[in-house]
Every structure is written in C-alpha cells, then in structure tokens.
C-alpha cells in the first residue's frame, strides 16, 4: 500500500532522500506541519517570520547601543 507524504516523512525508509535529510539535520516534523497548510498559509507564516526577525534585529541593535553607551559613560 502506498504511504502518504506525512507517513513517509514521519517514518523514513533507510537509504531514502528523506532519511538523508533527517541525518543532515532537517526537522521533518516541521515539514509535516508545513505540508498541512495551503501555499497561501505558508507564505503568511513566512511573512510573520520575516517581521519577527526584523523586530528582533531592531531590538538587538537597540540593546547593543544601550550597552555601548553604558560602557562609555562608566569609562568617563
């Protein structure tokens, strides 16, 4: 009997490309989660991830600036 994409990803056959991806470090459970979404839902998730990462980068930059200011003041 043919296995579904989800079954193939959750129980990869030894020597398969799926098993190779798992050994490479790909989290196959994440792929299963993505496959359950529509392409539009996947792009909406990508958009959210972009926004979160951009926000994180801004916060990190601010925190770095604050730390630098603190150090330069303490040297004075």
């Amino acid at each position: 009997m043919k296995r579904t994409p989800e079954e193939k990803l959750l129980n990869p056959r030894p020597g398969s490309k799926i098993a190779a991806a798992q050994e490479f470090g790909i989290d196959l459970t994440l792929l299963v989660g993505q496959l359950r979404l529509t392409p539009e839902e996947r792009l909406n998730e990508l958009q959210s991830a972009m926004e979160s990462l951009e926000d994180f980068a801004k916060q990190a930059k601010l925190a770095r600036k604050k730390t630098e200011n603190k150090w330069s003041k303490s040297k004075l």
Partner: protein
Amino acid sequence: MVKIEAVIKSLSGAEVDYVIVGGVALNAHSSGYITFDFDCCYSRSGPNLKRIIEALFSHNPRPRNFPDELPFVFDISTLRNGTNFTLETNIGKIDLLGEISGIGDYQAVLAHSEIVRLYGFDVKILSIEGLIKAKRAAGRTKDLLVLPELEALREALSDEEE
C-alpha cells in the same frame, strides 16, 4: 523586508507574466527557509515589460544600493537594457530575473512551473524539480544547503515509494 501579498497582488493584478522562484517559492512548497526578498523570473516580451512598469511604478522602484543623488528612470528602455534587476521598492526588495541558472529564460522556467492559488490569483511558482535544478546550478553554499530538504519533499510528494 518584502510584503509578499502586496507584490503578488501588484504583479498578478497587472497580468504580468512571471514565475516566483527563490525563497518565496521554496516556502510555498513547504520549506522552512527564511528569505527577505521576492525573486521572480519574468517574460521579456515588450507587452510584458509594459505590464511590469504598470505594476511596480507606483511603488517607487530603484536599484538597490544605487546612489540617492543619481536619477533612475523605471521605464521600458531601462528594462530592455538589462536582464536582471535587484530593486528596492515601497513594498520591499524585488528581484526581476530574465533567466535562471540551470534552467534558462522565462519560457524554460515556465515549463518547470506549477500554478498555485495565492491571494485571489492563480500564480506560477517554480516546481520543486525546477528549484533543485536552479539551486544545484547556482552552487553557492546557501543554495546547496536547501537541497536535502527539497529532495526530501520531492520524495515525500512523489507517487513512487522511496
């Protein structure tokens, strides 16, 4: 950061002939790859170049890292004089690619595409097989790193047992 929905609505709303390639196509196929720009391969026919101008003109496109003091005119002759354009716009970074390494020009890319429904439009995206070819041909580390995931997806979605 690119606004994916806005880009698709602009291009598809103006009936531009394009195929989504790169990170956005990867994600549409279920990859977890994060990208911040929108790459597409476009037809270089005259009428299509006009449609691209119509679609993007109001979003103030300029080449990325182009000096602010220099004028840039986004018109047909500009598009005719180049092939690949990396643009900064009001809706984010958009790369217009006349050809894709490992595949070829728009017609070849179109032959490797599939249609998906996105934001009310039937949109063409590069197939998993096409993405594998393109990433292999590009050969940069960041391209090669996505191959195991793409090959796993291709195998999972294939009708044949692995």
